[in-house]
């Protein structure tokens, strides 16, 4: 991997993280947006991912972007091991898919992106897997019981499945939007 590739990855990670951050701040307002965050992100970030894999057609590009994003998440206080684990696993799967299908294969990249998007599921996942602990912890930290009750009421178990499927499917749409934008703007300008 050349220095140029590394720098490209760095810059794209910054953009990816900023998009994440904007959605996440909105997610602070109501728990509903928080649960919708992975699907929303999978639509929004398609263009970033597609441009990155088009620019850096090499082994490890997605993994490094995921690692950097993860490190910054930890540094900004999103210290949840669940998120880091799902994020890492998603990036590794995406890398494997890219390796198998070839780096310039649009369908492969699309599938890789769908798995990459699943990584963000780790953010609201604790609601389901540690529901008891999570609710207690929130109350003891001083969140009003109403908020926690609302959160528990709007998150039955089927919603988790729905969220995963929605994230996966919307990632295809996001990837297609990304592809269209690349065609419309970047290929014409000769940037890919």
């Amino acid at each position, binding site marked *: 991997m050349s220095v140029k590739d590394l720098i*490209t990855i*760095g810059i*794209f990670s*910054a*953009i990816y993280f900023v998009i994440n951050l904007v959605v996440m701040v909105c997610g602070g307002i109501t728990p509903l947006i928080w649960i919708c965050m992975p699907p929303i992100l999978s639509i929004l970030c398609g263009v970033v991912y597609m441009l990155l894999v088009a*620019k850096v057609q090499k082994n490890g590009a997605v993994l490094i972007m995921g690692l950097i994003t993860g490190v910054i998440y930890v*540094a900004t*206080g999103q210290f949840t091991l669940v998120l880091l684990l799902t994020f890492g696993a998603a990036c590794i799967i995406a890398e494997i898919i890219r390796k198998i299908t070839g780096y310039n294969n649009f369908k492969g990249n699309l599938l890789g992106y769908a798995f990459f998007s699943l990584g963000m599921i780790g953010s609201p996942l604790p609601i389901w897997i540690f529901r008891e602990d999570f609710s207690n912890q929130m109350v003891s*930290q001083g969140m009003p019981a109403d908020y926690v009750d609302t959160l528990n009421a709007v998150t039955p178990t089927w919603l988790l499945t729905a969220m995963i499927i929605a994230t996966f499917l919307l990632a295809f749409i996001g990837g297609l939007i990304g592809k269209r934008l690349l065609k419309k703007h970047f290929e014409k300008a000769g940037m890919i």
Partner: protein
Amino acid sequence: MTEHSNAIRLDPRTELLLLLMANIVAFTYSAPWIEFALIAALSILLTCCGCGKTAVKWLLSFGALVGIQYIVIPILPKVLVIMFSILTVYVRKLFPCFIIGSLIIKSTPVRFLIIALSKWHIPQKIIIPLSITLRYFPAIKEEYRYINDAMKMKKVKGGLKKLECTVVPLLMSATGTADELSAAAVTRGIENPVQKTCIVDLRLHVLDYLCFVIGCLFVLAANLA
């Protein structure tokens, strides 16, 4: 980047460790007094490092949040309580991380961070993109301002249209910047495979160890109390 001759300069490695510890304390904390003590300790640290103004700013906003939680929230209607609670509970918890983060950004040039990270034997493949990422955040903000102005001038309307008109130029300029930065880095010899030397003598001093010990005490206190 503020440089003060009489201020202490901590090793970036210490600052990173402190950041990690602040994270741990923030997510295991049980008693408010630990949080207050941590904020106070960090403000003193910031003042000693020559970032007194920043420290005052953080203290004031922390005070405001605490004030909201204990004085304003009990008298608010329920709907507003939920919105404000997220602000006071979650944002307040992240304050230690914010404070150390601002210390790192204000007092540590990126090249120091790179030296420190390479002393931890983190591979160049991670260090280069990471330092670029950190450097690029302010650029995104600036870029966004220009794009916003341009959109206003061209009278771009509608949410989706606006989104497209923001993201595409952002990515365009990002690819341009990547080319420029890599040309600059290669010119300066970043691809030279030999072990790089540096003029800065980066070592852990007594103060670094002191900060480290105080940080450990906070982690212990948070876990025991």
